[in-house]
């Protein structure tokens, strides 16, 4: 049998990185296995204004790179491999990655994160990468001097819309709610209202994306009157929430009806020695800071679990 790690952490977003940092500092043998580079969704977030300790704000890539460096400094390895299957009931537990390699572990910390949700509009799939996007930092550049629509009105939607005004000529935010009513935090709302490049369509829902090879227009439905109108845009950015990346955990650990992992205050899941942290966990607030807190708790809980068994 190969090396048995004290903990194998699946996912390298802020939750997984914090867990790796605490585990490493506690001298546990730990490895983080992640399909992407460290950072998770936070790495694709342009501006982070509310992570404590950064009064001038920071960026997602800068903060998560610092977290990854900090974690590595305590000896926790980070490998880029995609987990395809897990055996959480076995002793030791098994984490299998694409290509057939297996990691063995006394405990497993699940930090798979979430990904942007699709609305499944007509044209949304067809024009993916042709003007339809879920990542402003990835694709904003393409829309220099062009017009884009943003779907959604939460923190992410309004903040990413402001980021897009650096490139785009006009950014139109499509909002289902009545005029002036936004779901996002008040400081972002105030700044967005003051931004001359941002325009609003209230009582509105996107209906269909049309174009010829590339996006040319968005059909918008007025939710009060049912009337359809046409908005000429080159891009449509969707920020309508996220869904957990827990498909590989179906039947392995208890999930709620939306696929979020159920864990208690100690991050313990339905399986002994298995913990869940970050956005993939059923929780009240999904932020970098709450993911990092989850990670710290899970690593300490895992350490106690191992000590209790020895």
């Amino acid at each position, binding site marked *: 049998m190969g090396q048995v790690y004290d903990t194998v952490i699946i996912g390298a977003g802020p939750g997984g990185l914090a867990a790796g940092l605490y585990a490493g500092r506690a001298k546990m043998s730990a490895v983080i296995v992640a399909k992407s580079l460290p950072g998770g969704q936070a790495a694709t977030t342009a501006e982070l204004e509310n992570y404590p300790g950064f009064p001038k704000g920071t960026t997602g890539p800068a903060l998560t790179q610092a977290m990854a460096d900090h974690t590595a400094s305590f000896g926790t390895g980070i490998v880029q491999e995609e987990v395809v299957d897990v055996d959480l009931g076995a002793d030791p537990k098994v984490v299998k990655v694409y290509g057939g390699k297996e990691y063995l572990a006394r405990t497993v910390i699940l930090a798979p994160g979430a990904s942007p949700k699709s609305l499944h509009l007509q044209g949304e799939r067809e024009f993916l990468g042709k003007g339809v996007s879920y990542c402003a930092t990835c694709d904003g550049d*393409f829309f220099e001097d062009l017009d884009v629509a943003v779907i959604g009105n939460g923190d992410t939607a309004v903040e990413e819309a402001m980021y897009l005004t650096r490139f785009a000529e006009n950014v139109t935010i499509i909002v289902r709610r009545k005029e002036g009513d936004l779901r996002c935090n008040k400081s972002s709302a105030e700044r967005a209202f003051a931004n001359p490049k941002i325009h609003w369509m209230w009582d509105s829902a996107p209906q269909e994306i049309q174009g010829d090879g590339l996006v040319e227009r968005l059909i918008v439905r007025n939710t009060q009157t049912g009337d359809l109108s046409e908005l000429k845009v080159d*891009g449509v950015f969707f920020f309508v929430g996220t869904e957990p990346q827990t498909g590989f955990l179906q039947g392995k650990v208890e999930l709620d009806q939306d696929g979020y992992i159920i864990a208690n205050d100690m991050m313990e899941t339905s399986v002994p020695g298995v913990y869940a942290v970050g956005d993939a966990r059923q929780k009240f607030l999904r932020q970098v800071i709450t993911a990092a807190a989850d990670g710290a708790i899970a690593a300490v809980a895992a350490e106690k679990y191992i000590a209790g068994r020895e």
Partner: protein
Amino acid sequence: MVAVDKVNFEDEVLKTDGLVLVDFWSQKCEPCLALTPAIHALSEKYADKAKFCTLDAGTNKRLSISQKVMGLPTVAFYRGGEKVAELNQSFTAEDVEVKLKELA
């Protein structure tokens, strides 16, 4: 992998016989950077099946848009000067390998 840009795209991609894979990426695109090592590994494994090219869309915006690429990451497959297949945004290295085997 061959770095292509607006100057050599036509020669290296459109005028090349056989299957050509083009990896559209940019420095700001984290998912692109995450995918890079896996694409490099595939370029070694399938060196005899396809020509592998990499295109920085951040510095070649017009060229990318002319190829109808307005989102990253994108991996496009060309043959005989025509785009024959494309993978957009939410795909894995495994998807690229499946597509390579299908087209090669």
